[in-house]
């Protein structure tokens, strides 16, 4: 996934899980069935997994623009500067 896709997937996942949890709790409390609450929530978790975890094409609409190989020669890699002074010794 590209960056935009990852952000979208994360937001979707959090929103969907919280929404399903709220819906499941309210329905379960209203009809008085603990088991129904758990079932609705489990269904919500499975649905969220199917939507956000696999690498769907909608998460890849902003692909990363990698640098062209010919650019590498025009911008040489900077060399690390070697320091000659040792900072602790003083004579």
């Amino acid at each position, binding site marked *: *996934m590209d960056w935009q896709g*990852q*952000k979208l*997937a*994360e937001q979707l*996942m*959090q929103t969907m*899980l*919280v929404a399903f*949890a709220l819906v*499941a*709790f309210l329905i*379960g*409390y209203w009809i*008085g*069935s*603990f088991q129904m*609450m758990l079932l609705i*929530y489990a269904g919500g*978790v499975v649905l*969220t*997994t199917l939507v*956000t*975890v*696999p*690498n769907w094409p909608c998460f890849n609409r902003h692909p990363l623009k990698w640098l062209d190989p010919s650019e590498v020669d025009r911008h040489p890699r900077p060399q690390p500067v070697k320091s000659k002074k040792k900072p602790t010794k003083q004579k």
Partner: protein
Amino acid sequence: MHSFGYRANALLTFAVTILAVMCAMASFSDNLNNPSPTAEVKVLSINWFQRQPNGNDEVSVTLNISSNLQSMFTWNTKQDAFNGFFLVGSGSSYCRKDDRNSASQKVFVFLAAEYATPMNSLNQVSLWDGIIPSKEQAKFWVHTTNKYRFIDQGNNLRGKEFNLTLHWHVMPKTGKMFADKIVMTGYRLPDEYR
């Protein structure tokens, strides 16, 4: 979120955390319940009242215990999926049999006699207990002799006044178990052995 495994892990962790929060809310919702239980016990007869060879008094009583604990059951109370039949008869206490050995708890109930003696300031003797598997069976009456023996530590029971207390423990599906009781006063044992 860069890989399949990372997303699956994040999702599962978050889902389980939310599940824990939901269970906490469900447990908290039990506090919104205002229960109004009732109970009444009649001592129908004192079958016998003897002093044992080791010096302790023992009583056998026949009781009629009637109670309505339906308001204790909430959506968060453990219940059986399968209801069996129960045996009620004189001489046997309220018990329940079913085919599956489902050990799921429901509401535990027990009846205790409380009295004071010179030796112990408070004695509590359990006379009967039972399990209520579901809300429908929480309104019940039982006609039984005491399931457990009513034996004193000493010989102080002649003419003794005692209270009968019905205790119950409500088992939740998630959260804290809570217990309460109803005290019924005004019972008295006979003055002489029978």
